[in-house]
Structures are given as structure tokens and as C-alpha cells.
């Protein structure tokens, strides 16, 4: 009796896992089924259009790449700087504890709230308008907690003997960090950055909130350009009643997922190469 209950429980638990994985399978199937036939070279190179069959994602793809590149450029130095401070300088002080608590709370603030912050601070108060730079600054704040957490883990894997050796040769604290610790931690830092950016690239709500447009027929040409991004274009197409636009949305999702997967692949390669180098 007890044995049977145990077996039953095991089967039910396993079944839940299979249901969850099955739902993921259904999602992937649904999107391929709806969107794969719409994918073509012209879909990638055309811009938005009122005619579903002629519409493409070029402008949105370029917008996403601009925003993400700039987000990375903003989040990398600040995130790494914050992590170095918390890990190498002030890890035991009370203020560092407070900052840590604050970061872990920030990581769980809904992304749309960051959008309201971006709207009030970057778009209006700092007068950036609804530009690529305002969007990137908003997403950088959103990505910051992830970058800080992963950088701290990477710094923690650097053995203390490296630091002590450097000090013994007369290097200062910053010289030690810059010449010894950071280069060793770099692969971990980059992996964390890419993962943070691959989350940011799928973000829709904060960019809608700061006023990124849903219909914009050109790719950005400077950081002050107005812009749209892939997920917003997908949202725009999903919201239309016509089936043709739904197919466009599915195809847009495929492009977005391809972008995401290639970013993750880069992260895996970076981690892999560093592991091999570490062993040699």
C-alpha cells in the first residue's frame, strides 16, 4: 500500500514535469506552424507596411540591434564597476549590505515600472525624447542587477593566491584588479552580460511605456533616432484582427527567437573556450 502510494506519487510528479515540457513543445510547434511559411529574405529586408504580405521586420530588427548594443555599452562598465566595489572593496561594510539588499529587490521589480522610470527620467526630465538612447538607458537599468550578480560570481572564482601574488610584487589594489583579477574573470563576466542582454532583447513593456513607436517605417541612424524593436512589432501585429498579420507576428517571433538563440550560443562558446583554457 505504502509502496503503491509512493509509486503513484512519483508518476504524478513526473507527469507534471512532462506536461510543462509538453506545453513548451506546443508553443514551439504553434509558432513554427503559423510563421515558418512567412519567413523569407524579403521579410527580413522589408519595412513595416499596411499590406501584411509586403511587411517585413528590417526596421525593427535594426532597432533591436541598436538598442541592445547600446544597452550593453551602458550596463557593462557600471555593472562590472558595482560588482568590483561590492566584491573587492566594501563587501563587509554596512552600506555594501544595504546596496546588496537593494539590488536583489530591484531584480524583482516589474519591468513596466522601469518603463515609467525611463519615461519620467530619461524621456522627459533629461530631454532625451523617445530615442534609442532613452530606450537603452532604461533597459540598462533593468539589466544591471543581472550583470552585477553574474560579475560577482565570476570575481569570486578567482583564487585569492592570485591577488596575494600580485600584492607581493608591489602592485596596488587597482593594479591587481585590472591586470590580474578582471582578465581571469572576463569569460564569466561576458557570459553574464550576454544572458542579461538576451533577456533585455525580449523586453516589450518598458519600451512601449517610454513611447517607442509601434509604427515606424525606418531603421535608426543615430542614438537620437526614434525607433521600434522586434517584440513591439510583434505585439503590433498580434493586436490586429486579420489572420495575415498573425502569421507575420509568428514569423517575427521566429526572427526574435533566432536572435536570442544565437546570443545564447555565443555565451556558451565563450564559457566553453574559457574552461578549456583554464584547464590547460
Amino acid at each position, binding site marked *: 500500500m*505504502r509502496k503503491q502510494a509512493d509509486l503513484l506519487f512519483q508518476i*504524478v510528479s513526473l507527469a507534471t*514535469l512532462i506536461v510543462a515540457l509538453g506545453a513548451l513543445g506546443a508553443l514551439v510547434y504553434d509558432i513554427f506552424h503559423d510563421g515558418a511559411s512567412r519567413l523569407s529574405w524579403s521579410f527580413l529586408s522589408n519595412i513595416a507596411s499596411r499590406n501584411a504580405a509586403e511587411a517585413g521586420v528590417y526596421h525593427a530588427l535594426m532597432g533591436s540591434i541598436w538598442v541592445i548594443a547600446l544597452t550593453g555599452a551602458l550596463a557593462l562598465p557600471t555593472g562590472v564597476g558595482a560588482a568590483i566595489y*561590492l566584491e573587492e*572593496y566594501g563587501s563587509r561594510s554596512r552600506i555594501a549590505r544595504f546596496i546588496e539588499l537593494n539590488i536583489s*529587490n530591484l531584480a524583482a521589480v516589474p519591468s513596466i515600472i522601469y518603463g515609467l522610470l525611463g519615461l*519620467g527620467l530619461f524621456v522627459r526630465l533629461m530631454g532625451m525624447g523617445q530615442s534609442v538612447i532613452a530606450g537603452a538607458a532604461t533597459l540598462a537599468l533593468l539589466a544591471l542587477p543581472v550583470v552585477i550578480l553574474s560579475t560577482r560570481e565570476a570575481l569570486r572564482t578567482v583564487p585569492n593566491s592570485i591577488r596575494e601574488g600580485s600584492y607581493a610584487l608591489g602592485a596596488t589594489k587597482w593594479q591587481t584588479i585590472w591586470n590580474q583579477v578582471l582578465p581571469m574573470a572576463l569569460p564569466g563576466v561576458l557570459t553574464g552580460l550576454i544572458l542579461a542582454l538576451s533577456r533585455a532583447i525580449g523586453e516589450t513593456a518598458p519600451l512601449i511605456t517610454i513611447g517607442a513607436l509601434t509604427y515606424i517605417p525606418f531603421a535608426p541612424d543615430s542614438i537620437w533616432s526614434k525607433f521600434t524593436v522586434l*517584440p513591439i512589432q510583434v505585439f503590433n501585429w498580434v493586436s490586429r484582427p486579420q489572420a495575415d498579420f498573425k502569421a507575420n507576428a509568428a514569423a517575427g517571433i521566429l526572427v*526574435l527567437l533566432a536572435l536570442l538563440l544565437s546570443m545564447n550560443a555565443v555565451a556558451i562558446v565563450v564559457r566553453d573556450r574559457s574552461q578549456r583554457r583554464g584547464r590547460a
Partner: protein
Amino acid sequence: MTRTLEWIIERLLFLCAALSVLTTAGIIAVLALETYEFLREVPILEFLTGTEWTPLFANRHFGVLPLVVGTMLVSAIAMVVALPMGLLAAVYLSEYSPSGFRRVVKPVLEILAGVPTVVYGYFALTFVTPLLQRFFPSLSGFNALSPGLVMGLMILPLVSSLSEDAMRAVPQGLREGSYALGATRMQTALKVVVPAAFSGITAAFILAASRAIGETMIVAIAAGQQPRLTANPFVPIETMTAYIVQVSLGDTPQGTIEYRTIFAVGMLLFLMTFGLNLVSTWLRERFREEYA
């Protein structure tokens, strides 16, 4: 010279770290400022207890309850899916599965958490809703049920991975003691491991609830834009987040009261999620101490 440089660098690094505190302060300042302006025109009692939300109509009412109830409804459905399934998945991964199986399944589950939410919205609207309509013909095209279920799927990995971490932190000795008394793995899991990991599991649940409340794109796509005070999951509703998206997409001029509503709603959303996050952090800290 070197010493000055070292001093400057340390200050700069400190500024980077302090940026996160400034972010929190900025969020609170921006929300509080606009909410204050909003509350000068709408009494706080009307905002918090009113049952009609029609700020964009000619006949304006600013009662936020329909949005709050809509948010709660979708989140509750999501939790009904994610809690039992996430917990069972965590029990299986932590107590039953061979480690090879876990190494394969965990990353795949993690994919669920990495899928952009706009993709889930598409899935809810074009796949799950039509599927449900076959079983419930009265289900309307926009509803709370379908986005709720899909949101449950989205937060499931969060629940399962945090719960599993909590269960694996339970000392092996407790399990061995239970087995020695003749308990089966199920009895050990449910009566020893889960209770021992209780505060960690609760922290995971609360964090999941906070994620569900703040989730935006799934509901903006699949739940509709009709603020409605109802517990009926079959009809269109509107959540707090979906309302902010709706206004952001329109051309409401800034400085108007309609415009300020999104900051007031955002403030409420922020307070709700921030409160939940604080409780969750506190529970996790406590859990860490128990088995330190």
C-alpha cells in the same frame, strides 16, 4: 600620485554600486511626484475604493478596484497552475530523479523562463484560447483564463528551481533518519523535506506571485482592455499593467489627469510587488540561517 588615483577609482566604483540605490530612489521619486499630482485632483479614497475605472471616457471615474481585481484574478489562476506543478516538479527533481535526468531537464525548464513574454501572449491568444473555446463555448476571445494559464507556465520554472534549491539544502541526515524509521520516499519528501524547506518554498511562491502581478505582455495581448469588477475568468478584463500599456500606446497628452493615472497605477503596482519581494527576501534569509 598612485594613491590619489587609487582613491579616485574606489570612489568611481562606489558610484557604480550606488547607482542601484539611485535607481530605486528614482523609481520612487518619479512615481510619487506624478501620483501626488494625481491625488490632488482625485481623492485617495475614491481612487482606492471606487468600483468604476473609466479615465479615458467622457464620464470619468477613477476607481482602481476593477484593475486590481483583474490583476488578482489572472495572477490567482497563474498561481493555481504554477504552485502545485512547480512544487511537484521540484520534489521529483530533488528527491526522485537520477542526476543525469536532472541535468537535462533543468536547462530545458529554464528555457520556459527565458522565452520573451510577448511570445507567451501570442501563444495564449492564438493557441490556448481557441483550444479552451472547444471545451467552454462561452469563453470570449479575450479572457482572464487563458493568459492566467499561460502565465502559470511562465512562472513554473521560477517556483520549481527556487523550491528545489531549498529542498536540496535540507541536510541529508534528516532524510536518512526518516528512511531509517521505515518511511518511503514520498513520506520523507512530504513530511520531512518539504516542511524543513518550508520558508524557502514560501519565498519562492511569494516571488512567483510578485512576478505574476507585474507581468504585462501576456495580459495586454490576451486578456482584453475592459476594466471590469468580476471574478468570472471567461470575460474580457483589464489588469493594472495592461492599462499602463493601453495609455502608453495612445496619444494621451502629458500633464493631463488621464496621463497621470498610469503613474498612480504604477505606484500601486510597485508598492504591491515591492512588499512581496521584501517578505520573500526576509524568508530566504531566515531559511539560510536555519541550516547554516
